[in-house]
């Protein structure tokens, strides 16, 4: 174990507090509506990992191809395996050509490649960090990067503490020349409140909270960012966005895939920790939050934290009543037979891990009083997709909406992925002499309306971290609040006797029937995706 008690994150410099002080470049006016990053050195821990090859380097390459990567930025990969700069560059070139959304241009690659370096070291070897520090100092001196450093922890959370300890011991958590040092931490950020708190303590002893960027790639998605625009840039939605007009909200994230090669990870995680604690609660927060006072990172995150704090904590009885967990059995997906979860590679044949969870969440504040948020997430469901559906209350039962022949409610759907867009369902008279009413859908598709593809989430998030903009990153109190809520459910599942049942559902179905009953008993039903 490492001890971090005496490490000081260092002083907060004036321009570390406000990165825009440094970006007062008179030639920038009118050329960019976002803060531009300063050149820096990006150090990726876990340089030989899948994320680095498939997402991080392609994202940095695309930023360079679009002219958004500061020209003097260097990328340094830190990992255990023996490689040279040249061999790593060759591997990265090959994987970037496969994974980059814009392909690979030889000219751009040849201008980026000389700025990529590989640094081989054990994560626990202090000398490896000291040589890294010397390397970074050299690069700073060569290219005037002012000691700006971004450390990306693309490693298992079990490695965080060791890496952070050594970073601090080598003095790498403080810029030698007054620049900024920041750290990006990949999910999962802890496995429960206690571990998240410990991790936050560990990170907090080495980096200031303002320099800590907890990444949730869902927040980098165009449609997730559009939720705030939809709500607060339009006059028609916000007056209706409350308990007076909204009946309930459904948030769904469905996958056709099973656990694939992630059996061991999934066994220790499950759908609740893997998806609900981070991605889906983030979407819930964006949907439920109050308008922020401004678009600053903390103003937005303050409002999200208020939502997290308003989540009604569940007792074991509430969990039994309001949460359904399921596990997929054998079945068929897209016409092909697939095995059940317990038959998957490196999964226990008696596993109690949930691959599906449906829950009813209450947000106890004035706006959302008595408006349930139903969340469901699952693997091996018939269709993949993530969406938020705002279901409005029924029209009064006069004129057209008679008790015997009720009309469907208005539903506003925000599709996060795939086929990103927004649709609104409403009632309409069918042509003819008689009054016959049918639901119609007004549909906006990003892909249809905008020819330009959106940048990948990691491009946006890396650029934001380099610019010091934490808006799309989770804050400590947000993460811990979310774990507090999730822990109550996990405790009910694993620490009460008898535990609530783990239901099974055939692959290719929409989950266990108990999940349907969760809504049916309140006169509601899951949306058909």
């Amino acid at each position: 174990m490492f001890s971090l008690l005496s490490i000081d994150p260092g002083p907060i410099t004036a321009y570390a507090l406000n990165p825009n002080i440094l970006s007062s470049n008179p030639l920038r006016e009118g050329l960019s509506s976002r803060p531009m990053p300063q050149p820096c050195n990006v150090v990726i821990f876990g340089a030989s990992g899948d994320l680095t090859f498939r997402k991080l380097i392609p994202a940095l390459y695309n930023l360079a191809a679009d002219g958004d990567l500061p020209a003097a930025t260097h990328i340094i990969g830190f990992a255990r395996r023996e490689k040279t700069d040249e061999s790593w560059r060759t591997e990265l070139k090959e994987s970037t050509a496969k994974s980059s959304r814009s392909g690979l241009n030889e000219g751009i690659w040849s201008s980026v490649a000389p700025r990529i370096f590989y640094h081989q070291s054990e994560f626990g070897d202090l000398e490896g960090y000291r040589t890294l520090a010397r390397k970074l100092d050299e690069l700073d001196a060569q290219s005037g990067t002012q000691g700006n450093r971004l450390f990306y922890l693309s490693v298992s959370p079990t490695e965080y503490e060791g890496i952070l300890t050594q970073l601090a011991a080598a003095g790498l958590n403080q810029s030698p020349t007054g620049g900024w040092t920041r750290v990006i931490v990949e999910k999962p950020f802890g496995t429960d409140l206690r571990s998240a708190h410990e991790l936050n303590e560990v990170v907090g002893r080495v980096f200031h909270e303002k320099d800590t960027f907890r990444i949730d790639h869902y927040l980098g998605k165009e449609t997730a960012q559009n939720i705030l625009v939809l709500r607060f840039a339009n006059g028609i939605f916000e007056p209706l966005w409350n308990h007076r007009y909204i009946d309930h909200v459904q948030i769904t994230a469905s996958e056709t895939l099973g656990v694939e090669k992630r059996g061991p990870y999934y066994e220790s995680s499950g759908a609740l920790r893997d998806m609900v604690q981070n991605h889906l609660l983030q979407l819930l927060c964006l949907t439920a939050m109050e308008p922020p006072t401004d678009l600053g990172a903390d103003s937005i995150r303050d409002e999200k934290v208020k939502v997290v704090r308003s989540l009604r904590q569940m007792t074991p009885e509430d969990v039994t009543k309001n949460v359904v967990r399921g596990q997929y059995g054998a079945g068929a997906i897209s016409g092909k037979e697939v095995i059940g979860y317990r038959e998957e590679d490196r999964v226990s044949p008696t596993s109690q891990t949930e691959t599906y969870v449906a829950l009813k969440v209450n947000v106890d504040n004035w706006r959302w009083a008595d408006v349930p948020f139903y969340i469901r997430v699952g693997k091996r469901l018939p269709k993949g997709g993530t969406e938020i559906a705002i279901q409005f209350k029924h029209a009064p039962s006069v004129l057209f909406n008679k008790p015997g022949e009720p009309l469907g409610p208005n539903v506003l759907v925000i599709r996060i992925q795939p086929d990103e867009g927004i649709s609104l369902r409403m009632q309409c008279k069918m042509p003819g002499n008689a009054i016959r009413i049918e639901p119609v859908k007004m549909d906006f598709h990003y892909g249809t309306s905008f020819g330009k593809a959106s940048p990948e989430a990691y491009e946006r998030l890396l650029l934001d971290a380099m610019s010091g903009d934490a808006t799309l990153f989770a804050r400590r109190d947000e993460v811990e609040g979310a774990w507090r809520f999730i822990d109550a459910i996990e405790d009910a599942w694993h620490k009460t006797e008898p535990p609530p049942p783990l239901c099974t559902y055939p692959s290719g179905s929409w989950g266990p029937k108990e999940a349907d009953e969760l809504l049916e008993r309140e006169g509601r039903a899951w949306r058909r995706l």
Partner: protein
Amino acid sequence: MVLDTSKLGLPVEIGQIGKELKKLWEGDGGTMTRASLINFAVYCEGAEAGEQNTEFIIEFTRDHACRALLIIAEPQAAETTIHAWINAHCHLSRAGAKQVCCEQISFVLEGKASNLIPNIVFANLDSDLPLVLWWQAEFPDPLDGRFWALVDRLVFDSQKWVEPTKQFKLLLDSLARTESRLAMCDLNWTRSLHLRQALAQMFDHLENRRILDGMTTITISYAPDFRSTALLLVGWFAAQLKLELKHHDQAQVILATPRGHEVTCQLVAEPGRSISRCQISAPEGVVEVAREGSGDFFSVDVRLSDSRTYHHLLPAGNNESASLLAEELALGGRHRVYIKALAVAKELM
């Protein structure tokens, strides 16, 4: 006017356009999705420009869902005639196998019918959507300002004007008279967008800022037909760095910093790209952005006085009108910096 109308679609009566469009969509059996985010009107003169724009709009609708209005005018024609066509351009959407379609309404106006443009455009807009008007000819004198009330973005290319000074005066006077709030989108300004971005990026780097602060010379190499592009670039430097115009002739412009130091802008006409090179020199170092041959990138070199050098490649964009328009539409917003740069550039034209 001898115009190949085969790609304009179905000939229709002017008064029946709405009805005929409705029929067009009713006949698709519900297999196509009609999409529109803007009204996109193109005004051009002559058959050749008309045919080029017909091809252009087909491509444009791939990336920009719109109702396109193509107005092909021949104001000098002796006879006054009006003809109209409707058409749909369908492409597979980026999201999948869905056919996404845009409407095009084309008009050929000869003789005095050219005066009916405001009426024709007013009558055929897709309601509630912004209007982008791309005016590809010289503005007529006098210029009817009532039209501007309807236009959200006016696109033009001042590089193609024979008399830019007169054209700017006509346009700006007309906009001022009508108190129009439309966004002026000069493709000649967009033409230097990537160059300005490359230059700006070099000075995001604090270490290079001292070159900007101490600069003595700016050298701009431009193709002979693109002097106005170069002058707008000089205007940009002057406006953004608060440089005062002291003197100018064909080869150079002398500017002064707020502290009274002189900055010389050397203007070098030479064959090549619109702006093939821009170099900023100071005792502290040199920043040079150059585009050679047919490459898609700027080669950017920073040479500091302590002998350190950096080399980068940055996107250079494309000088084709279609690409410039796409850049312009992606950029959006009002071009306040352009207005400031133009104020200086006009003095130099």
